[in-house]
């Protein structure tokens, strides 16, 4: 007898999802044969705010594209405007930006580890990772004053300096976080119960990962060594780091890549603190931006494109943000095809979906 086709709606309100996304799963018995995503539950239309907020105020709006990658969005927008206006931020500003960016990456990845643990039903592991994450948030708070949205970045540099003694204090704190993650890593990467949920689940080949336009850890877990930090912005050219990849292409590989990136970020932060240049966090700006530019940076979830078109007025003409999750959705649909219904929550979480980024 032929399998019966049925449609199972997944989301928008679902226990595993902190954010709303809706996917229609077309299933034959327990197998998903097709997945049709629909988005738009968080669409605010903030790109349209360029007509109401001037180019300086748009930094705040850009930061609020997403509360998890908030610093990255602010940075991406600021960097684009700075390029158009021909502003070169000071060395110290570049280093502090890099440091904050990497702290954001750490908190985002640890947050993801927690959500992943929650998705495969390991509540205490969720609690443990989120306890570690609070240490990162403490560092961010002591540096910027905010836990989630920082508003420390501005066009031309930074709004305020972060004193050296606070920065020095980060090093022992980072040590503790890395130690904590190492003990969690044992569970994520070698516990048999966890492995049974991750190994071989949601395989994506290297070719598909490239052709479907994947980004970030999702791409690198399929064996592609692209990392937009290698484009050399901020202080990345002056610090030492390698691109982390894995060839397995499954959920386990995505977990592995993200855990390694946490250690990598900690190492980058340490280098930034050691090499921190003195003096100067702000270059005054004159006039209004005129021209267009696109910046690509590496967000925790992957490459993000920021496009700005300005015509020498106080209000810019167009701001467009292509976020990594948006690029990852076609590949998510691909990995969902042929999976078990019970694996759907895990697969959705493995791309580290950030819906409010996606829909803006």
């Amino acid at each position, binding site marked *: 007898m032929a399998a019966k086709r049925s449609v199972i709606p997944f989301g928008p309100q679902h226990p595993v999802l902190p954010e709303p996304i809706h996917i229609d799963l077309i299933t034959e018995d327990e197998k998903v044969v097709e997945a049709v995503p629909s988005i738009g539950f968080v669409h605010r239309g903030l790109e349209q705010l360029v007509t109401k907020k001037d180019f300086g105020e748009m930094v705040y709006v850009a930061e609020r594209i997403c509360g998890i990658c908030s610093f990255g969005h602010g940075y991406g927008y600021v960097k684009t405007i700075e390029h158009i206006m021909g502003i070169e931020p000071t060395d110290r500003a570049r280093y502090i930006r890099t440091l904050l960016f990497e702290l954001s990456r750490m908190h985002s990845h640890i947050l993801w580890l927690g959500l992943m643990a929650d998705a495969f039903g390991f509540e205490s592991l969720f609690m443990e990772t989120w306890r570690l994450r609070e240490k990162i948030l403490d560092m961010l708070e002591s540096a910027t004053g905010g836990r989630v949205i920082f508003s420390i970045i501005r066009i031309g540099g930074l709004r305020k300096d972060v004193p050296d003694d606070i920065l020095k204090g980060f090093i022992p704190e980072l040590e503790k976080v890395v130690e904590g993650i190492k003990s969690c890593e044992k569970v994520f990467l070698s516990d048999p119960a966890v492995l049974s949920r991750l190994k071989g689940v949601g395989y994506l080949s290297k070719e598909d990962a490239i*052709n479907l*336009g994947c980004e970030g850890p999702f791409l690198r877990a399929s064996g592609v060594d692209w990392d937009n930090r290698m484009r050399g912005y901020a202080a990345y050219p002056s610090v030492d780091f390698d691109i982390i990849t894995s060839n397995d292409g499954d959920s386990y590989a995505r977990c592995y890549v993200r855990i390694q990136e946490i250690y990598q970020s900690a190492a980058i932060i340490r280098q930034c603190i050691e090499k921190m240049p003195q003096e100067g966090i702000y270059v005054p700006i004159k006039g209004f931006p005129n021209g*267009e530019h*696109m910046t*690509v940076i590496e967000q925790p979830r992957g490459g993000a494109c920021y496009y700005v078109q300005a015509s020498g007025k106080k209000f810019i*003409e167009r701001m467009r943000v292509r976020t990594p999750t*948006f690029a990852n959705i076609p590949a998510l649909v691909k990995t969902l095809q042929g999976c078990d219904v019970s694996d759907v929550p895990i697969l959705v979480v493995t791309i580290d979906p950030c819906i409010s980024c996606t829909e803006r």
Partner: protein
Amino acid sequence: MLENLEVIGLIGLLNKVKEIKNEDYRIMQICSTKIDEEYELLYTFGREYEIKHLKTTIRYGEHVPSISDIFPSAFLYENEMHDLFGIAIDGINHDYKGNLYRTAVEAPFAGSEA
């Protein structure tokens, strides 16, 4: 001021995109901007760290051919463009028919005539 920018007419779009596809580029984003009485479409392609832009300009109401046959993952960008700008795009492989974003205002970025 965009690097590697090529401005082309709408007619040559598909052929040019095919050429780019054969050079192993992948789609990075599609974006539209309203300039006075026209829309400017910006297609961005990437290969490792190289980026290539194609820009074309269309009038209000003009139909644009879909590139989703060439780059299957372009469907989201094209649906987005249709929903936000009201640009008619022909032959998208997954056409949401305006249901990707259900906005309070129809085609909120569109010009007055659309």
